[in-house]
């Protein structure tokens, strides 16, 4: 029976993983396909536009003399030649100002096509528009005389010709993706036993590898297509020029008798600046060239250009006549890169989704992924599954919320303008979101506490879906305000709901993992949403994106309703009333704003940073970039770059701050860099640079550097400022958690004020990027003022002044123990008591432990001692007595630090006497692990004492008194162990002898069940 279950289990594993992989791979291929279709169509649009421009130029030279359109003689012959030169074109027509056909060449049944492509016009020509119906794609360029638009030229081609080429490239990838997914499923199903024994997440690694293989194939196809696509226009222009010259040559006419031929060549070059040169070459000698100095020279191949030769030699003639057009390779590479860049953004989004799918599959399957280690405790397993079930809810909602960020500002500004309302209302509409969000947090928290997080989530999702629906139909100012406010309220409810859900269901060891859901959901959702939304808007327009957003959130709501378990109460042990919460918050806010130190950091660093986020990054920047002609996809990707920079800086600086403790410097640096980034964008990127030579390139460079700088700067501020605030002396009065919560509340002033302030500045000086530059200077000035009026940190680590009365963390597990004659180390897993826990729970526990021993050590004194101990350890790092043992110790630490069961912080207690450099290096590495800490004891005896204390704490929680026996017992065992040759010793005896019996006592530490201990050999 067990065997049957095992086989059934394997089959389900295989099917699930094959399905997940299949969906992910096909999704990736489909995204590549969609992106290729869109971009490839753009290449054709560019080509048709270039061809139409030549015609427009000819017709307008006639119209600008105020002559009637229908009297223009040359349309039909020119159109016929174009049709002959390019078989993809099926119709060329001239329409009058009422869209009635004046001239038609080709298929006369194709009229003025009904649908307008929303945001797909080529950026270099804002006059053109792209229309379509089910069969045809049509590029329309207006015809103007000196005063008005009096008609248009439309060139049409079938969609099918474009999609067919893309399909030929991408359809073969689908069977490849399916084959790989089936192979992946078989691998997972057949090797589940082996996978379960692996320490590394082999399934995820294989999955990621296959995902990359598919991505590589997609990118390969995209590059091939785009390389071809970038040359379509030039080739078509060469063919068209050739067709125009064919008859001159074919009729054996004397070129000298036909003035204006050279102008025709120059015109091509002028209308299509990408072209390097165009020439008429007869028997290898240039007769006409866009560069007059080349006339009479032999035609030679030039490096670094693509060359298109069109043979127009007359039949039966010995003369070889060619039209030659060259295109710089750099242009091809640049355009290809630009197009692939769009896919790269989508790749990131789809990778997030694929990762989500894999995790979801694991949770739906009601067990860990086959590569995960088994967790015996059923509750922990359930908790983990619950966390995975709720993860998509938050991620998808964040993703959808950010779908519109690249274009929302310009969209709302457009509606406000069309309604004839003052432009400052745009910022008011933006503010309504943040105001709704801020005002909902506290009531939502209360509701979550009092009732259950699930209804809060569901209602939040409902409001979000409604807000998108309101935007779809949004044609009045109140609808827009209501839509954004509803979105803010909904997002806040969802945020609190998810957070409360995590607190309710997550086992202590999963709390960090739970916190990661918020981080992953927000950052991943933001990056994915911006990438997808900015590209999606090109397909379906803003209202289409809103409609999709509404549908997706509704589906998420349905998913949440059925999949997310209802949790009875978020915090049943703390049923504080709403008014009490408000009172506490009010009291804390008053305390906070009366504290100059806290006020300074909030007013000069925290609030300005948040105001820049909402007022500039989300509101002003997309608006200004749209005005400057940036494509929506570029805006989305630039914002995505901002988000990625925040994440990167967060990641790096948190470790650095933990190590050095100098958060003040980091905050000031963040403010100054933030100002610099804004100044770069406002003055350089979107300022007046485009008016000078190479201005466009410089402009883009400045925008990119500016936005990355701004992102990095905000990364420097976002995480460290919480630690910085928590370390302020006021935390001893109102507690760390309360202080950080108060700070979080106050910084939302910045969220709300951002769009309002920038909106007012726009009213004062106009919608000009100089507002960004001035804001940058102000932000930098705030940072410098803070530098002048704040005191440097007095200790190298940030959280030195925390109250030790109530520990905020606890010992959770023994990860490893190493004892030999030279090395003594203990690695413990610890956990913070809540998700907003201190940055250094280890120290907190340590201080609390000492406190229980009656040793009233001040945090700073203790830290100083720890640091001295660390220094002494480093000083003796050259005392490596036994390299073999040192290496073994290093292996032990490496294995201990690589505990991948969770991201829980570790506490490493080592004796410094004989630690070698490699050990210190690893200890330093461990120190960087979020919330982890290294405690260095100067003597073996002290270390043993500590170890006993830690182990007792582990077994007895914090109920142990100030004494837990001498170290003699352990010492004797240690000596015996060393006499046996040393190595690993697992000591379990003493604590269990002395501890009081508890019903929920943890199992004794057993090397066989501890993967780390098991993995570390002697």
């Amino acid at each position, binding site marked *: 029976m067990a065997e049957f279950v095992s086989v059934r289990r394997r089959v389900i594993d295989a099917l699930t993983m094959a399905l997940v992989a299949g969906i992910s791979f096909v999704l990736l291929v489909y995204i590549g396909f969609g992106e290729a279709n869109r971009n490839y169509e753009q290449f054709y649009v560019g080509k048709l536009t270039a061809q139409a421009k030549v015609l427009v130029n000819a017709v307008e030279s006639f119209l600008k003399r105020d002559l009637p359109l229908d*009297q223009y003689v040359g*349309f039909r012959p020119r159109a016929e030649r174009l049709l002959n030169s390019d078989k993809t074109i099926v119709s060329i027509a001239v329409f009058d100002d009422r869209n009635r056909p004046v001239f038609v060449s080709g298929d006369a049944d194709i009229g003025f096509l009904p649908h307008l492509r929303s945001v797909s016009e080529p950026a270099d020509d804002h006059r053109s528009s792209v229309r379509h119906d089910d069969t045809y794609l049509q590029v329309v360029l207006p015809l103007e005389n000196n005063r008005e638009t009096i008609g248009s030229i439309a060139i049409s081609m079938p969609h099918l010709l474009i999609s067919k080429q893309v399909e030929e490239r991408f359809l073969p990838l689908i069977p490849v993706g399916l084959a790989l997914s089936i192979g992946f499923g078989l691998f997972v199903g057949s090797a589940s036993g082996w996978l379960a024994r692996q320490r590394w997440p082999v399934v995820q690694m294989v999955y990621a590898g296959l995902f990359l293989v598919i991505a590589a194939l997609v990118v390969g196809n995209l590059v091939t297509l785009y390389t071809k696509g970038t040359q379509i226009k030039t080739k078509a222009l060469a063919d068209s020029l050739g067709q125009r010259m064919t008859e001159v040559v*074919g009729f054996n006419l004397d070129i000298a008798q*036909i003035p204006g031929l050279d102008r025709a060549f120059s015109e091509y070059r002028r209308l299509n600046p990408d072209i390097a040169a165009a020439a008429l070459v007869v028997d290898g000698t240039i007769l006409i060239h866009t560069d007059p100095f080349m006339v009479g020279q032999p035609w030679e191949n030039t490096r670094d250009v693509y060359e298109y030769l069109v043979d127009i030699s007359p039949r039966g003639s010995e003369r070889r006549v060619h039209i030659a057009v060259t295109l710089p390779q750099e242009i091809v590479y640049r355009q290809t890169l630009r197009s692939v860049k769009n896919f790269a953004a989508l790749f990131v989004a789809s990778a997030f989704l694929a990762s989500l799918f894999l995790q979801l599959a694991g949770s739906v399957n009601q067990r860990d992924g086959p590569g995960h280690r088994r967790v015996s405790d059923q509750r922990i397993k359930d908790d983990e599954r619950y966390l995975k079930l709720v993860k998509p809810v938050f991620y998808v909602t964040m993703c959808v919320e950010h779908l519109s960020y690249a274009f929302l500002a310009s969209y709302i500004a457009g509606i406000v303008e069309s309604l004839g309302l003052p432009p400052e209302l745009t910022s008011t509409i933006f503010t309504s979101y943040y105001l709704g969000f801020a005002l909902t947090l506290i009531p939502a928290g209360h509701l979550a506490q009092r009732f259950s997080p699930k209804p809060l989530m569901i209602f939040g999702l409902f409001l979000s879906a409604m807000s998108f629906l309101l935007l779809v139909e949004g044609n009045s100012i109140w609808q827009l305000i209501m839509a954004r406010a509803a979105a803010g309220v909904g997002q806040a409810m969802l945020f609190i709901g998810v957070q409360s859900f995590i607190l309710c269901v997550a086992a202590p060891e999963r709390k960090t993992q739970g916190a990661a859901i918020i981080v992953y959901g927000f950052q991943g959702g933001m990056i994915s949403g911006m990438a997808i939304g900015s590209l999606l808007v090109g397909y379906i327009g803003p209202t289409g994106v809103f409609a999709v957003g509404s549908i997706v959130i509704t589906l998420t709501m349905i998913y949440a309703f059925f999949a997310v378990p209802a949790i009875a109460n978020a915090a049943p042990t703390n049923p504080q009333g709403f008014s009490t919460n408000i009172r506490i918050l009010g009291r804390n806010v008053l305390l906070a704003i009366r504290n100059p130190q806290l006020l300074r950091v909030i007013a000069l660093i925290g609030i300005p940073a948040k105001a820049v986020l909402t007022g500039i990054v989300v509101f002003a920047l997309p608006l200004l970039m749209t005005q400057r002609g940036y494509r929506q996809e570029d805006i989305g990707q630039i914002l995505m770059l901002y988000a990625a920079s925040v994440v990167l800086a967060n990641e790096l600086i948190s470790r650095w701050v933990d190590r050095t403790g100098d958060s003040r410097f980091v905050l000031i640096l963040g403010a100054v860099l933030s100002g610099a980034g804004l100044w770069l964008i406002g003055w350089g990127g979107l300022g007046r640079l485009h008016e000078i030579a190479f201005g466009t390139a410089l402009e883009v460079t400045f925008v990119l550097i500016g936005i990355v700088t701004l992102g990095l700067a905000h990364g420097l501020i976002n995480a460290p400022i919480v630690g910085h605030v928590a370390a302020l002396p006021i935390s001893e009065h109102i507690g760390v958690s309360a202080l950080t919560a108060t700070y979080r509340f106050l910084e939302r002033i910045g969220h709300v004020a951002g769009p309002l302030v920038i909106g007012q500045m726009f009213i004062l000086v106009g919608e000009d990027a100089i507002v960004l530059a001035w804001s940058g200077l102000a932000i930098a000035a705030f940072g410098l003022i803070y530098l002048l009026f704040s005191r440097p940190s007095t200790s190298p680590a940030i959280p030195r002044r925390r109250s030790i009365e109530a520990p905020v963390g606890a010992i959770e597990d023994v990860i490893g123990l190493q004892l030999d004659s030279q090395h003594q180390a203990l690695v413990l897993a610890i956990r913070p008591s809540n998700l907003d826990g201190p940055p250094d729970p280890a120290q907190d526990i340590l201080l609390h432990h000492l406190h229980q021993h009656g040793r009233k050590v001040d945090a700073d004194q203790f830290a100083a001692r720890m640091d001295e101990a660390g220094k002494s350890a480093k000083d003796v790092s050259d005392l490596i007595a036994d390299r073999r043992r040192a290496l073994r110790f290093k292996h032990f630490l490496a294995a201990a630090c690589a505990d991948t069961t969770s991201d829980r912080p570790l506490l490493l207690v080592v004796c410094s006497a004989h630690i070698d450099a490699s050990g210190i290096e690893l200890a330093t590495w461990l120190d960087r692990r979020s919330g982890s800490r290294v405690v260095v004891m100067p003597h073996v005896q002290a270390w043993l004492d500590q170890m006993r204390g830690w182990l007792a704490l582990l077994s007895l929680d914090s109920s142990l008194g100030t004494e837990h026996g001498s170290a003699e017992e352990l010492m004797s065992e240690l000596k015996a162990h060393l006499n046996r040759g040393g190595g690993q010793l697992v000591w379990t005896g003493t604590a269990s002898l002395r501890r009081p019996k508890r019903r929920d006592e943890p199992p004794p530490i057993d090397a066989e069940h501890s993967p780390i201990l098991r993995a570390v050999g002697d």
Partner: protein
Amino acid sequence: MDRKCKRSLPIFRCMIRGLLLAGVIASVWPAKGDAAPVYAGWFRHSEHITGAWTFTEVGADPQQVMIKSTVTGEGKPKRILVLYPKRSSAYDIAMSKILDVFASKNMPIEFQVINFNNDDGLGAEVLDLAEEDRFDLIFSMGSESTAWLYQYYRNGDTPVVTVCSKDPVALGHVADYENGSGTNFAFTSLNMPTEVQVAYLMDFMPGLKNLGILVARNNISAVRTQAKPMQEAVEAKGINAVYLAVQDPANAKEELPGLIESALVEMRKTDPSLDHSMFWITGATSVFREIETINQYAGPVPVLSAVPEVVQAGDKSAVMSIGISFESNGYLAAVYGYDVLMGKTKAGDLKVGIVSPPDIAINFRRARAIGVEVPFSFFESANYVYDYEGNAVRLRGRDLTRNAGS
């Protein structure tokens, strides 16, 4: 109708009836072999349409021709009267095109073409006949026919469509271009807007100083709709308009050398090298058919025309022409006629039919002979191109060299 016309009507009515009867008899009479038909002196047609139509003499009357479609069908064939004022190659071109268009409609139809030779009496008989014999439509060929019919048959029962006629607005036949005549007339125009014509001439020769305008004095329509407006237009632009009016169309060949020589003298006053002077021929048949003489005396001064058909193969050609071709006008008239015939619209509701855009024809042989350059934009736009050998290489926009190759 005036009194003179009314007096002569009964006589001509009898004559016409007799002629028609004779025509019917002749149509069933055995063929006379390869002898030229009696109407050959004033009526010709394109060879390519002979398959769709039968051409028969009407009795012994040399001024009539009966044209029947080879299509047989149920019901009575539609009957169309075509009124020629005289012999003209322009009318032959337009009539051929009309027949071409109606052949494509695949319907039984009869054309009776009568040359009334600008004779009011004969014209009146023809009108009587048209009404009594219930013709379904009248094509008024040429400005003279149109003027005569407009005078005597305005608001008649049978609808009239004009062909190869000058601008009816300029001639006062209709108020504007946007509305129909409100009578039984549907007008088409051979003219293109003068300002467009001037623009093209100045594109062809930037810095134009002298324009010699060639017209026949008694060709009222050409004078009123082409020569005079052109004179005014170029003079408004500071260009010297040299007005050359042939007094006697029958004697045009003799008059033209003197007119041209005196014009050249005048042109040299402002343009000694004659590099910025040109001649422009209006749509007066008596003038443009003397193109050879005009070329001979114009010397290096390019001769352009408002009539595309004046540019033709060989040396007897203008350098270039910009205007509405008779063929294009015939096509438009046929479309108008068909719509009226089928009851799709009333003749009086149709606004003035103007062919757009105009046609450009270039003869590179003539251009090279006088050393004139042809801008590339004209070469590209031309529907008719003749090469250095004087052979057609592009006709109706089609590259004949390519077709020959393939």
